[in-house]
């Protein structure tokens, strides 16, 4: 079987990319999803706050996904659920397996990677203490509760202040559990301030910044308590600041990792800062005709931006199939002072019609500041910001004319105004 496009992953990124490619003229498109339904992680994100940019409405996760699933249904795009992609080859063969159809190899003219993220687990950050039951990643607890109807416990502490942890603090409280504390090792929260307000403050749940869990205790194999400690600037626990909490549940909300095993195996270049593929302005990876979008490329906070980015990838895949490889010299986009990463990492000015979108994150909270773009020692542009935070992705648009003035590279850096 040969397709013009195969999309791997049927989350919001995969859905938006497939629909966009279809709008741009491709017909033989397959979306491959390992779960029993499309929608990705949005199926378990039952809270509202999705789609404010795109639909000017506050939708819940399933409603947002549902609108895209409906759009997909109105097309001839094939959705293969319960199908897991095992590998992709540099020659764009997609190897997959499903209970219904067994082992299959499909050929594709182009591929869009949209596999999303998985959560960092306890092992990945190494908390000392016992290894009892009752320790979950926040997303796992979310899936148990919202899809399967299982409550993870009655007294919980949340480690990490990522959005999923904050959302789960509210969710558990509404379901009758007591959430004792949210503990964050950094001096600022990794989540959106609106989630601090409506998930913690609304219910009087304390947030301990610059704190961490230093011990985990168990009784009969089940968690029975944790110790929380303040940390110094080097994130070392400070003696004498220990607080004990009696709890049967510890939720970890300590970050997401793009799911890129397939990408690596295919020999596609990975950016160690994003843990996603290095991409060009049109979301194309180092392997021509293979594109990446959504959380598999870099972790997003807002699904609206996932959809936008994925539509760009979809359009580019259609271009590739119809007109062949994009060409022209590429500028390298470099992360300068105060900037952790940029997406894209390369821009081909010859492939930019009006402007190129650049997304990035800053490495600390900044008040009044400027985003400065430089090339070959000269300043190209400057954008003002009132406030920037690592938890909130920044977005700038670089007009085609500006790109023409750049030499070889553009460095994106930040400057904080002196108080």
């Amino acid at each position, binding site marked *: 079987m040969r397709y013009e496009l195969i999309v791997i992953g049927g989350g919001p990124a995969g859905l938006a990319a497939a629909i966009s490619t279809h709008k741009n003229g491709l017909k033989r498109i397959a979306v491959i999803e390992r779960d029993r339904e499309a929608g990705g992680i949005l199926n378990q994100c039952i809270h509202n706050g999705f789609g404010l940019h795109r639909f000017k409405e506050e939708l*819940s996760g399933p409603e947002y996904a549902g609108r895209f699933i409906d759009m997909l249904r109105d097309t001839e795009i094939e959705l293969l659920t319960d199908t897991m992609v095992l590998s992709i080859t540099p020659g764009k063969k997609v190897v997959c397996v499903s209970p219904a159809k067994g082992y299959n190899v499909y050929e594709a003219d182009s591929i869009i990677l949209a596999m999303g993220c998985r959560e960092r687990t306890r092992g990945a950050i190494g908390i000392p203490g016992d290894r009892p039951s009752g320790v979950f990643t926040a997303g796992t607890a979310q899936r148990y*509760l919202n899809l*399967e109807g299982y409550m993870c416990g009655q007294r919980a502490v949340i480690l990490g202040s990522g959005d999923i942890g904050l959302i789960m603090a509210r969710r558990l409280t509404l379901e009758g559990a007591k959430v004792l504390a949210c503990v964050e090792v950094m001096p600022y929260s990794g989540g959106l301030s609106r989630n601090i307000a*409506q998930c913690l403050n609304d219910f009087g749940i304390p947030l301990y910044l610059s704190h961490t869990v230093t011990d985990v205790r168990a009784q009969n194999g089940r968690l029975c308590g944790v110790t929380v400690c303040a940390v110094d600037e080097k994130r070392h626990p400070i003696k004498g600041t220990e607080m004990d909490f009696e709890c049967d549940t510890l939720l970890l909300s300590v970050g997401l990792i793009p799911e890129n095993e397939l990408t690596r195996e295919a020999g596609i270049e990975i950016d160690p800062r994003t843990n996603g593929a290095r991409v060009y302005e049109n979301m194309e990876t180092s392997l021509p005709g293979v594109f990446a979008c959504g959380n598999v490329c870099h972790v997003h906070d*807002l699904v609206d931006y996932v959809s936008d980015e994925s539509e760009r990838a979809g359009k580019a895949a259609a271009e590739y199939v119809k007109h062949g490889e994009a060409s022209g010299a590429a500028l390298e986009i470099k992360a300068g002072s105060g900037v952790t990463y940029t997406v894209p990492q390369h821009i081909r000015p010859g492939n930019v019609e009006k402007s190129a979108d650049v997304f990035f994150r800053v490495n600390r909270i900044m008040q009044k500041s400027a985003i400065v773009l430089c090339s070959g020692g000269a300043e190209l542009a400057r954008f003002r910001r009132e406030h920037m935070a690592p938890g*909130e992705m920044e977005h700038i648009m670089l007009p085609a004319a500006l790109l023409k003035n750049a030499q070889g590279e553009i460095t994106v850096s930040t400057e904080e105004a002196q108080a």
Partner: protein
Amino acid sequence: MKELICIVCPRGCHLKVDEENGYAVTGNSCPRGEQYGRNEIKDPRRVLTSTVKINGAAYRRCPVRTSAAIKKGDLFNAMKELNGVTLTSPVKRGDVVISNILSSGADLIVTKDM
């Protein structure tokens, strides 16, 4: 003067609301923030999102939400109402589960086809 974080959009503006001066709002970047700031002091409301039991579907819980924000103080009472509900598949996004929940004027609606 009360300080709040606007929760209407992810920007999260820091608002100040002056109760003595006709609930004048400052710090907002858009008119929705002004409205939120005033309401939050006079009559705080939230959209409730949760799940109810469902039979005959791929999963055992069906996600629901209130069609509009309800009084913050009513959230836990509304959760009690939800405990008594069991749906049967098929249901469609937007189907009303409980109309005019707790006389709030808002309906409890299904948010996923199941």
